């Protein structure tokens, strides 16, 4: 059992927000069949949102590109999905939420409380949703205010998810810490774009979007490394994890746990595979516990 901001996880792998998190049934499946130690829902907002027009996600050579545009059925409808997930997943269920202001974040958080999420993850980092996500999350003042506002309306742990598209991610991490966050999550997708050269059209319906998958792992490692050194809070690592080696690398950079998003493309049980891979690695190297490797790179000088 791993303890993370008070939640008990059977292993340190967590489903990342926006991936297979649209329905309670899907969250349940990722936990049960996939073996995730915890699951994060799709980001939920104040109003139903269809998201950007298709194409909304593509596999590129070393990465995935997406601009879903935060499609979600609103907190009113999602509350029920949360209940389903809670009833059947048997692992902590974290509600990812978004809004354009502290008021909206609070409205969504309060609206979802009856669904009994185990924690909130604040999406202050989506790179392609005007007025939401990174648009808000690049501003340290807003990050602090929003974090504090959500902390105020419930006793649940609050994780703040950060964008790498800033000059120095530590500034934003510190704002989250000042706002009372229980953990930071790094990183959301990296601003990116691809163009179809046969037609000249941008490949995404939204023209540009966010990069995820293997290509961004080195960016995530750097962000986690910097945040670990700068903050007191636990850092949850996400970005390009598809095997146990990636998870170990992020942990050595300072991640207390890792989230996995795009790699569900390879297989749903990527979570089981990663967590048993981590265990085997700890055994082989004679570490007693994941704690021995969290932040290890900071000591190797």
């Amino acid at each position, binding site marked *: 059992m791993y303890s993370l901001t008070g939640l008990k996880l059977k292993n340190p792998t967590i489903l990342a927000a*926006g*991936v*297979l*998190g*649209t*329905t309670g*049934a*899907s*969250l*349940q*499946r*990722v936990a049960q069949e996939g073996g995730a130690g915890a699951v994060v829902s*799709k980001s939920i907002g104040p109003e*139903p*949102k*269809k*998201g950007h*027009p*298709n*194409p*909304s*996600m*593509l*596999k*590129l050579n070393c990465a*995935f590109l*997406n601009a*879903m545009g935060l*499609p*979600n*059925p*609103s907190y009113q*409808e*999602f509350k029920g999905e949360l209940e*389903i997930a809670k009833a059947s997943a048997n692992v902590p269920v974290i509600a990812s939420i978004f809004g354009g202001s502290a008021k909206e974040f609070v409205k969504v958080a309060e609206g979802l409380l009856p669904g009994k999420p185990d924690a909130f993850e604040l999406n202050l980092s989506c790179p392609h949703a005007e007025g939401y996500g990174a648009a808000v999350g690049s501003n340290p003042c807003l990050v602090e205010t929003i974090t504090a506002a959500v902390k105020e309306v419930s006793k649940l742990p609050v994780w703040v998810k950060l964008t790498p598209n800033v000059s120095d991610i530590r500034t934003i991490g510190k704002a989250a810490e000042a706002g009372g966050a229980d953990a930071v999550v790094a990183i959301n997708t990296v601003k990116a774009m*691809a163009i*179809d050269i*046969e*037609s000249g*059209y941008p*490949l995404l*319906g939204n023209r540009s979007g966010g990069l995820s998958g293997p290509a961004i792992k080195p960016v995530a490692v750097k962000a986690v490394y910097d945040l670990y050194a700068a903050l007191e809070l636990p850092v949850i690592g996400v970005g390009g994890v598809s095997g146990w080696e990636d998870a170990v690398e992020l942990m050595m950079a300072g991640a207390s746990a890792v989230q996995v*998003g*795009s790699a*569900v*493309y390879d297989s749903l049980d990527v979570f089981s595979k990663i967590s048993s891979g981590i265990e085997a690695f700890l055994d082989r190297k004679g570490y007693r516990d994941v704690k021995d490797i969290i932040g290890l790179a900071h000591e190797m000088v």
Partner: protein
Amino acid sequence: MRPLNVSIEKVVEESPSTRTFVFDHRFESLKPGQFVMVWVRGIDEIPMGLSSSNSITVQRVGQATSKLFELEAGASFGLRGPFGHGFTLPSSEEKVLIIAGGVGVAPLAPYAEACKARGAKVRTILGARSAQELVFKARFSKAGSLDITTDDGSEGVKGFVTTLLEKLEVSEFEKIAVCGPEPMMAAVFNTLKQKGEVSRAEFSLHRYFKCAIGVCGACCLDPYGLRVCKDGPVFTGAQLLDSEFGKYTRDASGRRVKI
């Protein structure tokens, strides 16, 4: 995978509302029932079953399909795929029952042909609103025997595919493959259930697709979270028992919508 750029070689008017677009790329490894994502540039990207290794057969319903209907030979669009699992192919000598409704013919015509090529015996029940909406009659009859139903009785038996199905001895078919509008498939599902034959029948489902590669979660079915794009679109009746199938679907935002 970046979308392939394909050019239209031929447009075939199959019915007033349905056209086949034959393009200049062959998906040689196509398993009938697999689909592609059709990128109508500047508009939308939508799922379409492959009606042969180099064609899609499209019913005009809204913006993207209407835009497709404006395209003529020489025009091009983008294609990602093929994706998903197809219908299970029979071994030679097996008997196959195909139940197709409306544009559900698209993945079933190549399936019928593949069954015949393997030496299986194919019987098709083809339903449509009216005679002029019947698509691929020739392909199905070439592949085996064909029964027709139309809602208005303008051709074949008046009624629904279930009108015929109810009377059929289904147990003699080793494979049953179904595709059509969900209410029609739900009716078939119930008929087969009553006959105790639903578990091994296969149904090709439609849900709202975004990523089409099993990542985003837009197309998940209750209560097991099966992804129509990746775990399907073809599911066995056993997988669909006690599911949302026939009851509700979800729109692009993830809200439930009654079927």
